[in-house]
């Protein structure tokens, strides 16, 4: 058989054709099928939502996972929403839980700093309540500030004993000064005094311990005339019980 004959035989296969009725029906069938774009448009948001959850209908073992996920989402939502709550509000206790968790998780060194930040936050809340004239929340807010200040005082007592880091002392001093200003502003708005006796004593004691220790250390160090002068001034302030100013001099001298 020659190549030409083979080709001729192959060409005979051209007689193979599909059934005419099938050709027409298939075309009509394909064209009558809903378009993908139409299908997508017809799916409503509700259907998509149900579709997303339909997996759990067929796989019951996934139900606990769904329940956990829903609870988790709910808790996240509540905690996020609670962040805007003010003392006296329903969700304020939830906010307090997250704040306490933050304090508990902080290291002993970081704790006073976190407590001071919390004090600032409480003063912010009180300022907001005072400015918005929300009398109902005022008492709780003042109590909250006083409570946090007492807790901060406790932390400060501990930090003076365990930690003597200059950088932390500097940060604490800045925060204490900011709190002092904020407290004065709130007291002006409220025309009342916030009970911060224990806090003030604690701050004072913290400064005293810190300054005493720093002075002792600096006395053993070789200082230039300018530093000698600053140390002398710090000592005088310390003797006058002005520990805050004395600390400022020492921090300026050392850091």
């Amino acid at each position, binding site marked *: *058989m020659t*190549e030409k004959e*083979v*080709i001729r*035989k*192959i*060409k*005979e*296969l*051209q*007689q*193979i*054709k*599909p*059934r005419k009725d*099938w*050709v027409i029906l*298939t*075309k009509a*069938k*394909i*064209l009558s*099928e809903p*378009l*993908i*774009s139409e299908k997508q448009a017809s799916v409503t948001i509700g259907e998509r939502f149900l579709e997303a959850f339909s997996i759990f209908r067929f796989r019951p073992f996934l139900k606990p996972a769904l329940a956990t996920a829903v609870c988790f989402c709910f808790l996240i939502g509540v905690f996020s929403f609670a962040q805007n709550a003010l003392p006296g509000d329903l969700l304020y206790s939830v906010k307090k839980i997250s704040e306490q968790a933050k304090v508990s998780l902080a290291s002993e060194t970081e704790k006073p700093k976190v407590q001071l930040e919390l004090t600032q936050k409480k003063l912010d809340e009180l300022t907001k309540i005072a400015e918005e004239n929300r009398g109902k929340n005022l008492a709780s807010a003042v109590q909250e500030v006083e409570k946090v200040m007492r807790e901060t005082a406790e932390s400060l007592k501990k930090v003076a004993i365990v930690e003597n880091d200059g950088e932390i002392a500097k940060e604490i001093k800045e925060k204490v000064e900011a709190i002092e200003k904020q407290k004065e502003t709130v007291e002006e708005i409220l025309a009342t005094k916030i009970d911060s006796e224990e806090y003030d004593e604690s701050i004072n004691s913290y400064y005293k311990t810190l300054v005493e220790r720093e002075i002792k250390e600096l006395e053993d160090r070789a200082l230039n005339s300018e530093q000698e002068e600053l140390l002398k001034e710090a000592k005088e302030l310390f003797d006058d019980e002005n520990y805050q100013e004395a600390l400022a001099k020492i921090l300026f001298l050392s850091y």
Partner: protein
Amino acid sequence: MNNQKKFSKIYDQYIDKIYRFVFLKVSSQETAEDLCSETFTRVWQSIDKGTKIENPQAFIYQIARNLVTDHYRQNSKAKLVSIDNCKEIEDNQPNLEEKSLLMSDINRVKLALNNIKPEYQDIIICHYLDDLSIPEIAEIMNKPKNSIRVTLHRGLKALKRELS
């Protein structure tokens, strides 16, 4: 031209060729019809999605080839051709004797085609039955033209061996 008209034109132009291409490879009318229908459904979906089809011929043949490959993967058993599968051959022969002779001839070629490599089958069907040029086949198969020429030559030789 709207999408329906576009599809209609492509369908009318290629349905016979694609059906023959698929049928010669699967040797079953039902399977050929199913795969052909699926091929054109995919073409319709692509047109609907707005896919730019630069070469409809290459595009359709590629879909059909892939579907045939998938079909064989799913049904790894090779199918033999039976006489019953030849009913789709148009009844345009004047007398029964001639028709019978022609059908037996066609079946011989079909069987021979089924016995050669699928790669040879594709190229022989495309070139001699569907009248596609070497560059067109090269585009469908995604291979160099020279390679198609060589494969076609080898395919013809293999088919000749099968027929003799």
